[in-house]
Each structure stands twice: as structure tokens, then as C-alpha cells.
């Protein structure tokens, strides 16, 4: 399916930008005319992925960058890529287990939220090179949904 529209942006790896990132992606996703619940879920998964990049990818170093690419395809699929150039994940399978967290201050639910609220989620990571989280979700046309 062709890309109908996309945005691409990058920002500094600081906590102040987590809310900017999720609000920006949510604003872009409103073009899909999705429900408020769906928008909240999109905000949540972006927040999780970006927080992971800042805390785990960069160990809270402020002068690094996080990149986001969001695209809407003709078939009403939303695709997101959230990418950092940090330390990467040693053991992806373990990192994706619920309540697994390498720091004690967050609840290790990030990947669980991403898996649950998106149709597809893939984590590409190499130690020392960074992490890229790619997510997809399809949104039905409202009328179809009503008659489904």
C-alpha cells in the first residue's frame, strides 16, 4: 500500500520531550479519524518507546537524539518507527517480558503495552548501535466498523 502521508522528526533525549513526542504523533494520527480511546493508546505506546530510548538507550544522557517517523498508508494503517542510537538491548526477548525492567523506578510494562495496543511490533537492536521499534496498527473505516 502506498504512503498517503508521513512525518519525520528528531529531538533531544530529555524527559521534557516525551510529552512533545506523543502529542505530535497523536496530532498526526487524528487524520485517521480514530476514536479518542485509540488516540490514547497511540500516545501511550509512543511515550513508552521514547522513554525507553532516553532511559535505557542513552542512560539518561541529554545530548543524544531520538528519531520518529510516522506514516499513514492508503489502507488506513498507521506505521511508526521510534529510533535511538544508544547502547542497544542485549537480550530483546527478556526485555519484552512483562514487568522486566532494568531500573526500579518504572514498571516494566512498556513492551507489553506496545504489543497489546498495536497490531504488529518489532524491535531491531544491536548492542552498541541503538534500537529501533517499529509498530503498525490498522484502523477500520468508521462506517465499516459500524456495520461489521
Amino acid at each position, binding site marked *: 500500500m502506498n504512503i498517503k502521508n508521513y512525518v519525520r522528526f528528531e529531538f533531544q533525549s530529555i524527559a521534557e520531550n516525551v510529552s512533545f513526542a506523543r502529542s505530535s504523533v497523536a496530532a498526526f494520527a487524528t487524520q485517521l479519524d480514530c476514536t479518542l480511546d485509540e488516540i490514547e493508546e497511540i*500516545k*501511550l505506546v509512543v511515550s513508552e518507546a521514547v522513554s525507553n530510548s532516553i532511559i535505557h538507550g542513552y542512560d539518561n544522557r541529554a545530548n543524544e537524539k531520538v528519531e520518529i517517523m510516522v506514516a499513514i498508508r492508503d489502507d488506513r494503517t498507521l506505521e511508526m518507527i521510534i529510533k535511538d542510537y544508544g547502547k542497544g538491548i542485549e537480550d530483546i526477548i527478556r526485555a519484552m517480558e512483562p514487568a522486566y525492567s532494568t531500573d526500579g523506578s518504572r514498571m*516494566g510494562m512498556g513492551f507489553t*503495552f506496545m504489543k497489546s495496543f498495536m497490531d504488529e511490533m518489532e524491535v531491531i537492536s544491536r548492542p552498541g548501535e541503538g534500537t529501533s521499534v517499529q509498530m503498525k496498527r490498522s484502523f477500520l473505516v468508521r462506517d465499516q466498523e459500524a456495520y461489521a
Partner: protein
Amino acid sequence: MSLDFKLIRNTLIVKVKGELDLLIAEKLREEIDRKLIDHQIKNLILNLEKVTFIDSSGLGLIIGRYKKISALNGKMYIVGAKPAIEKILFFSGINKLVPIYRGEQDIINI
């Protein structure tokens, strides 16, 4: 974000306003923990009525305070969470550790 603290005997009621994410959870943690020590708090009520967003960082804040309060043999409750916030709290299973009530009055009555 703004915080509103209320102290009833050894129970601290914290009213949080805003989005409970990485940035806010960090600030909240410091403020709540200082209050827990300064006022010898035993029980904690988190009023989430004015919270519009929560993620893992916010959930981590709740779990962390729950552990502290439990270690002091105290009780912790969450009140006022909006449906969208409540959905995340239930999804995470936090409600199994920290009971969720509609309003502060519901706790005072039990």
C-alpha cells in the same frame, strides 16, 4: 503539573494534576518521599481525578510508593481515576496491590 497535599492524622492525600509520565513521575517521587519522611506518614491516598495521562513511569511511581508504604505497614489507595486512566491501572494489574476507589469519601467510609 501541580500537586496538592493534604494531611489527615498520619494519612497523606496527594492530588496530582497533569500527565504522569517520565518527567512528572520523577518530580512527584521526590516530593512525595520527602513528605513521607517529614510527616511520618503511614497511609497514602493518591487522588488521580485531574490526571489526564499515565504510562510505565507513572505506574512505577505508584508501585514504588506502594512498596514504601507497605514496608511501614501502612495502606495505599488510588481514588478518582478517569476511565482512560483506570483502564491502564487495571491492565497493569496495579489494582491488585493498590485498591482503587471512586472518591476520597469512599475510603473514609470504609
